[in-house]
């Protein structure tokens, strides 16, 4: 047996793995209920159109089809999908109805839902629905949206959802004529999470009890439960959301989508269980997109290279409606634009506009990936202008350890001021460069080796974690001596059953096999706030710490009463409460006992780190190879190093996908051109085989009892920036400056062609 109190910090094998490795996990499409119908959603093929008429009669007539529901079959007013986070004034004018009524605003918007005796029949019926559209001009992109010539929501009078300024410092400082300055425009392409399991739901209406059960919840089950109950006119306790195994989330999965209303509503309407499983083509048009953003940015520095100001504008395309995560993507990009650097003056105009595209939501590291790309690219250009090495430029401008905590001011309209907490940004930076062999490798910058040009690129990132309301946990010591943990966090593949088990094992001196983490249902607790913004360990983990300490005290007190001593004299070890002189009793003999705990409300911790990329560019094919890649980051404290390393590497590869491969392409008619995995390029095992992530436990945060910072998201922030800088370094002989992603072969060719044209002038 492992020694007591040593699980936290060990790479314990995951408790989730046994079931997942043997095919015994339970994902949503594995659910089979008696009498269950299959649903298929009929979606708009037009980007922007008036819906004159929907004819579902032929579909209804098909044998095996039980019902076809469209807007006409829903109660009035048609419910609208609420904003969950990042509320901003006026955004309520742009909320999505759960089914299109009278007008469609993006390709893929739900118009009807078919219920049939099999999936095949439901899909057959989709082909028999006829819609009479009157096409309207699409709003194709940010520029179009801002011109307001075509309005997506005419009653609002504008396509702009957000239009605000954030500032810090004294703007006059930035106007000093002696400062070096450069302004550039950048762009991040629309791309998104693409979890391997598509969304799905099974809704079951129990007419006798007046009770609704919905399986397939993820991320924020309580939020969905509360709003679904409201929309259906049910008491909250009569709606249960159940989370099963979830095949990846990355931010997009588990928010409130139209189907989260339509499928339960349909189940109640026909009185039978209904299953809906999104197919991959649907997924690309119906699940949130992200990242699409333009940035015009000015940097002002002293001639020695000290940054004085970053000023400019961020403009994001939010798609056709404001999603449950509001304008979080551009607002976080603005908040994180200065990154881990000391930037005395910030002055940013933030615009979020609507277009005839799939609504945009939060995707792992929202705004961080974008901000790092804009900032780090511009920093490299400035450093080159000033004749300063890129590493020296960063080292000089990173916030010094002695300046932490560092106030960043109020940089988002819906939150108060924030501050960076603990760390040593320069030490982690130096460690990364040293581990990578930066000084030696840098000699390759711009050099041709075996027909390819090599280059190195850097990026420093920082990320908040643990946002939102607090979390709650309840620990029950059962009569068999096992401990059952109820917590409001959600599992999305990140291994929380394991990390939470490790925490409880140490707090109670109990073997992990005696601990069971239960997180899958809104009926386990009164309240829970789920998993987003790297908050599971910070909020859920710390709530469990508080609850476990309460249970520990209860066990001690119960044992003390038995032994006639004080609780302080009781030690917990291997599932027994022990008094000093050899008396002990098993936990089971003290059961039942419970401990409750909550954690929340504190300031957020900030993880940070440095990324470095070494690329080789084939000028002939435009292919960019990642020769090597390293991220060194500080997570404060690490519960399970193998899980953290897995999250970091996974995030880096996902970020490399965004840097080099992934792109949701729309044509001028706002039709999505990349609606399959053959067209939307995800990284494969052959793409990025050489990379590493080192995570340190350098500076635990004082902002939570465990001392942990988020570990799941922040590593995605670096790759876009580091790779683009490396490509610029590789192609420096041509004066190529990538300002847009992805750096796929066509873009590399275009950059080289433009450079050649410049050279000829």
């Amino acid at each position, binding site marked *: 047996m492992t020694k007591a109190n040593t699980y936290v910090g060990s790479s314990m*094998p995951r408790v989730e793995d046994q079931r997942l490795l043997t*095919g015994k996990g339970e*994902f949503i499409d594995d659910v089979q209920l008696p009498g269950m119908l299959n649903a298929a959603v009929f979606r708009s093929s037009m980007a922007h159109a008036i819906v004159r008429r929907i004819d579902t009669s032929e579909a209804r007539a098909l044998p*095996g089809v039980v019902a076809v529901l469209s807007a006409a079959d829903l109660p009035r007013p048609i419910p609208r999908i609420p904003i969950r986070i990042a509320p901003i004034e006026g955004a309520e004018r742009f909320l999505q109805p759960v089914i299109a009524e009278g007008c469609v605003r993006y390709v893929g918007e739900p118009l009807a839902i078919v219920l049939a005796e099999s999936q095949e029949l439901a899909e057959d019926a989709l082909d028999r629905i006829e819609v009479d559209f009157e096409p309207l001009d699409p709003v194709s992109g940010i520029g179009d949206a801002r011109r307001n010539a075509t309005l997506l929501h005419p009653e609002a009078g504008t396509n702009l959802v957000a239009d605000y300024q954030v500032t810090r410092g004294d703007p006059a400082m930035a106007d000093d004529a002696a400062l070096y300055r450069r302004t550039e425009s950048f762009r991040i392409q629309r791309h998104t999470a693409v979890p391997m399991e598509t969304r799905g739901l099974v809704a079951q209406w129990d007419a006798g009890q007046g009770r609704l059960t919905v399986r397939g919840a993820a991320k924020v089950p309580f939020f969905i439960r509360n709003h679904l109950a409201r929309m259906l006119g049910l008491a909250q306790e009569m709606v249960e959301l159940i989370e099963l195994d979830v*095949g990846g989330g990355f931010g997009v999965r588990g928010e409130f989508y139209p189907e989260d209303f339509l499928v339960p509503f349909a189940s109640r309407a026909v009185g039978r269980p209904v299953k809906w499983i999104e197919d991959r083509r649907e997924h690309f048009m119906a699940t949130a997109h992200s990242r699409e953003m333009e940035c015009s940015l000015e940097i002002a520095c002293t001639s020695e290279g000290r940054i004085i100001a970053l000023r400019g504008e961020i403009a994001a395309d939010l798609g056709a409606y404001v999603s449950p995560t509001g304008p979080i993507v551009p607002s976080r990009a603005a908040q994180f634009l200065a990154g881990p650097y000391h930037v005395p003056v910030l002055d940013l105009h933030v615009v979020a506009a609507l277009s005839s595209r799939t609504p945009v939501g939060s995707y792992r590291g929202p705004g961080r990936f974008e901000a790092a790309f804009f900032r780090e690219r511009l920093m490299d250009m400035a450093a080159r202008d000033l004749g300063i090495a890129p590493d020296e430029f960063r080292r000089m401008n990173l916030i010094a350890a002695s300046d932490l905590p560092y106030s960043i001011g109020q940089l988002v309209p819906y939150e108060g001021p924030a501050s960076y907490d603990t760390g040593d940004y320069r030490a982690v930076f130096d460690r990364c460069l040293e581990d990578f062999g930066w000084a030696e490798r840098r000699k390759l910058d711009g050099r041709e080796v075996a027909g390819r040009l090599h280059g190195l690129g850097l990026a420093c990132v920082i990320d908040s974690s643990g946002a939102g309301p607090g979390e709650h946990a309840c620990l029950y010591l059962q009569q068999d001596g096992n401990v059952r943990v109820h917590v409001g966090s959600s599992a999305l593949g990140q291994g929380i059953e394991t990390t939470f088990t490790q925490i409880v094992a140490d707090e109670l001196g109990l073997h992990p096999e005696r601990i069971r983490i239960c997180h899958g249902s809104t009926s386990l607790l009164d309240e829970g706030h789920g998993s987003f913004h790297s908050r599971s360990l910070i909020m859920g983990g710390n709530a469990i710490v508080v609850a476990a300490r309460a249970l520990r005290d209860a066990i001690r007190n119960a044992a003390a009463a038995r032994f006639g001593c004080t609780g302080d004299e009781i030690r917990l070890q291997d599932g027994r409460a022990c008094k000093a002189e050899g008396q002990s009793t098993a936990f089971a003999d003290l059961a039942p006992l419970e401990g409750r705990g909550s954690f929340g409300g504190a300031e957020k911790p900030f993880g940070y780190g440095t990324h470095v990329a070494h690329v080789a560019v084939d000028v002939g094919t435009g292919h960019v190879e990642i020769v090597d890649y390293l991220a060194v980051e500080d997570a404060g404290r690490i519960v399970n190093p193998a899980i953290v390393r897995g999250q970091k*590497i996974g995030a880096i590869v996902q970020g490399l996908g965004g840097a080099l491969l992934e792109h949701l392409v729309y044509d001028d008619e706002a039709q999505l051109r990349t609606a399959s995995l053959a067209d939307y390029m995800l990284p*494969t095992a052959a793409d*990025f085989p050489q*990379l590493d992530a080192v995570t340190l436990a350098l500076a635990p945060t004082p902002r939570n009892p465990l001392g942990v910072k988020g570990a799941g998201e922040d590593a995605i922030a670096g790759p876009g920036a580091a790779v683009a800088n490396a490509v610029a370094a590789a192609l420096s002989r041509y004066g190529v400056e990538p300002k847009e992603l992805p750096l796929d072969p066509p873009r590399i060719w275009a950059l080289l062609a433009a450079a050649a044209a410049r050279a000829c002038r």
Partner: protein
Amino acid sequence: MADPRLVNLTVNGRMVAVSVEPRRSLADCLRHDLRLTGTHIGCEHGICGACTVLVDGAAVRACLMLAVQVEGRAIATVEGLAGAAALGPLQESFRRHHALQCGFCTPGILMSAHALLSAEPKADRARVIEVLSGHLCRCTGYLPIVEAILDAREAYLCGAAEPAGKGK
């Protein structure tokens, strides 16, 4: 809808007969008719590899094959991979190397890796990456999976990886 056909096949060493519509994919048949839900469906167009099973020992995308095509053939799915053990050596190696996170793509990858190592127990890193590149995983970044497969080779070399119904 066409009339159902009766298909006889062996799944994980067990003979079964199943009545399917001719358009039923092997993946849907395994999952919904035979209730072997370990085989997952991620794209239904042969890209992601989550639905990979073995048909007569060869790794096949079950979403691209019709159930009526497997008449008389032997299918192996993840449910049979461990044999009588809790975990087979490949699965054990995945657990040791933290080679899965959400676990959705894992069954298909296990089946491809099992087919590879059964035929080529000395497969080198490049070969493992080549085979693995027929699968999409969005969580792990693939590195731990490569390590897990390489580390499982020894069990295949010494013949310790012979689950029931391996599909031969």
